[in-house]
């Protein structure tokens, strides 16, 4: 890292300094934009998708992704993108279903076009979508369709809401548990410390997946989606609160002995004042970093459980539920587009890891990791 020679003397707050250092981390900055994109998708999902994610189009299962074109079959360029319809053909030599493009009619894609009805943010009823083909044209399947004839693109974008919100809720639960349990253990010590330490050791020492699979399998299959959602959130939050609790505990123990705490105690500051005025700001950055780095674990856990058929179940739509259809590799060989939701999972996890790393470097320049 090269030193910048700054001659202006300007006082900056801790937060401003962190932001300044964070901006130098280019990958983290780009990743932050990507995460922003995911959050926008989670909030306004229906606006970005042309087809109703839960609607199964009859006789349209396993349609390969439509190619969006600018140049037509005669080599002419069109400024407005368009698609060709597919017609199904039966190949006599390979005995397989094949899809051929019907290049006679162009079906242009319109922006801010009409589509299925929905409520923006659950409030404003509308049927305007970012892009769509006209009503009479064949449906726009950007990522193809699944085995029930549902649009994979629309489902993938729509699934962002459940997958991201689950991860965020899970992290909130684990942060609350982590601060509470880690705080009690670190501040009081003694028996509560021992008990909390052993429980978190237990949760860290066992292989997570088998145990979580076991707990998730116990969720009754007749429960409504919201209840299943809540149980999976709670189960996956178990994976990260022990890390947080241990981190906070050891931070508290080391900070407790700092001179400024002694100074505060000597002017008879209350325990609460010491905790919130002096200790919390000191490990706030630690908490934010751990939070960012804990979200990928949540996304992974939900995806893995749903992929195995033990997490969320259809009609819920999450990335894991979508990938469940790609469980056997025979299916993936025939219909590789079913793996596209996996790209979203990898992108989300990768960007969160980059942002977490950038934040860690920015918040604590002395610690390498």
């Amino acid at each position, binding site marked *: 890292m090269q030193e910048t020679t700054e001659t202006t003397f300007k006082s900056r707050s801790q937060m401003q300094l962190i932001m300044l250092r964070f901006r130098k981390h280019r990958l983290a900055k780009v990743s932050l934009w990507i995460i922003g994109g995911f959050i926008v998708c989670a909030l306004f999902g229906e606006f970005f998708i042309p087809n109703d994610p839960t609607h199964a189009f009859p006789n349209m299962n396993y349609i390969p992704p439509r190619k969006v074109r600018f140049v037509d079959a005669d080599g002419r360029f069109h400024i407005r993108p368009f698609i060709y319809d597919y017609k199904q053909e039966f190949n006599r030599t390979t005995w397989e279903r094949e899809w051929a493009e019907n290049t006679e009619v162009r079906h242009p894609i319109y922006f801010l076009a009409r589509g299925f009805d929905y409520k923006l943010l659950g409030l404003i009823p509308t049927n305007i979508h970012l892009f769509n083909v006209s009503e009479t044209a064949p449906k726009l399947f950007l990522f193809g369709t699944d085995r029930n004839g549902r649009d994979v693109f629309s489902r993938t974008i729509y699934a962002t809401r459940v997958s991201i919100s689950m991860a965020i809720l899970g992290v909130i639960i684990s942060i609350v548990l982590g601060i509470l349990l880690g705080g009690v253990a670190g501040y009081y010590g003694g028996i509560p410390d021992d008990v909390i330490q*052993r*429980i978190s*050791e*237990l949760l*860290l*020492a*066992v*292989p*997570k*997946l*088998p*145990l979580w*699979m*076991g*707990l998730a*399998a*116990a969720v*009754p299959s007749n429960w409504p989606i919201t209840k299943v959602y809540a149980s999976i959130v709670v189960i996956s939050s178990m994976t990260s609160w022990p890390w947080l609790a241990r981190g906070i505990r050891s931070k508290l123990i080391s900070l407790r002995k700092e001179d400024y705490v002694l100074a505060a105690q000597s002017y008879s500051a209350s325990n609460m004042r010491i905790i919130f005025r002096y200790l919390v700001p000191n490990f706030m950055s630690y908490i934010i970093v751990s939070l960012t780095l804990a979200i*990928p674990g949540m996304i*992974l856990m939900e*995806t*893995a459980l749903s*992929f*195995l*058929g*033990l997490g969320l179940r259809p009609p819920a739509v999450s990335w894991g539920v979508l*990938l469940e259809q*790609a*469980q056997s*590799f025979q299916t*993936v*060989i025939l219909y*590789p587009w079913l*793996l596209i939701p*996996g790209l979203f*999972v*990898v992108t989300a*996890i*990768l960007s969160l*890891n*980059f942002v977490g*790393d950038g934040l860690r470097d920015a918040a604590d320049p002395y610690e*390498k*990791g």
Partner: protein
Amino acid sequence: MAAYFVRRVAYAVLLIFLVSVLAFLVIQLPPGDYATSYVSRISSAGMTEERRQELLVAITQRYALDRPIHQQYLTWMSNILTSGDFGMSFNWNRPVYRIITERLPLTVTLGLVTLFFQFVVAIPIGLFSAVNQYTKGDYLITLLSFVGVSIPNFLLALVVMVLLFSNFNISIGGLFSPEYREAAWSAGKVLDLLQHMIVPVIVIGMESTAGTVRTLRATMLDELGKDYMKVAKAKGLSNWAAVIKHALRIALNPIIAALGWQLPAIVSGSMIVSIVVGLPTVGPILHQALLSQDMYLAGGIILVLSSLTIFGTLLSDLLLAVSDPRISFEDGGK
């Protein structure tokens, strides 16, 4: 040191006890009456009502199902400890113990080979990355290790399988070629097993390898700047000799310490990859058992896998105390 060993062993025993409670919880959680569903599954149409009742009573007695829950736990536990009786699996209609012991050796082998693989691969890469800090190679390795921890291993397994199949027509399902599947153990069979293990091991080991590379790089960077490295070079050691003989020895300790979380991660990873690829480990068995609520089998597998992991972590703790005596002092002094 002896006191540290005793304390660590005692912790491990306590953890295994807690794990057994969790595993028992998994058995108990699903709704429904085990005895009736068991009898209704295994009883054939020709069975007399009298015989069914007998069976029901026998089952109830065997698992102490009519007694309070803590006594059920004690019965389950004492059956396991005294006679290795984990209960019956009603999908397989066989003792759980048999099913687990058939598949456990390959499960453990797969885990150990993965562990070995990740050290062999990660240590040179991490070293290279640290010694050549901020070069193109270092950036590439850092980027790749980020990608490595970010790809869910079941997705990687699927993609690798599809690529191998569609480009080379290689199928990596299973751990043995058909001709060796039923054969007795021989050099050829071992070789065949190792060949089949290559892809799963890389897929499972990806995450922990990437993690180890990053840990090693960070600790090496700390060590490389220390005074003893200057001394080593001042007394005439070449750069590499100093790195290997002095810095690496200390930088390896955090990696041994990291085994504590890597072992569980490898067990989890090998489980989901086995399910996707169809390897004959306990993974697919647990998956089926959970989907069909074959709970004694599921609980047994969870108990055995978790206990083995805790045991492995215990070994790594003890190993670390031997290789870095500071550990047992620090722990004792708190």
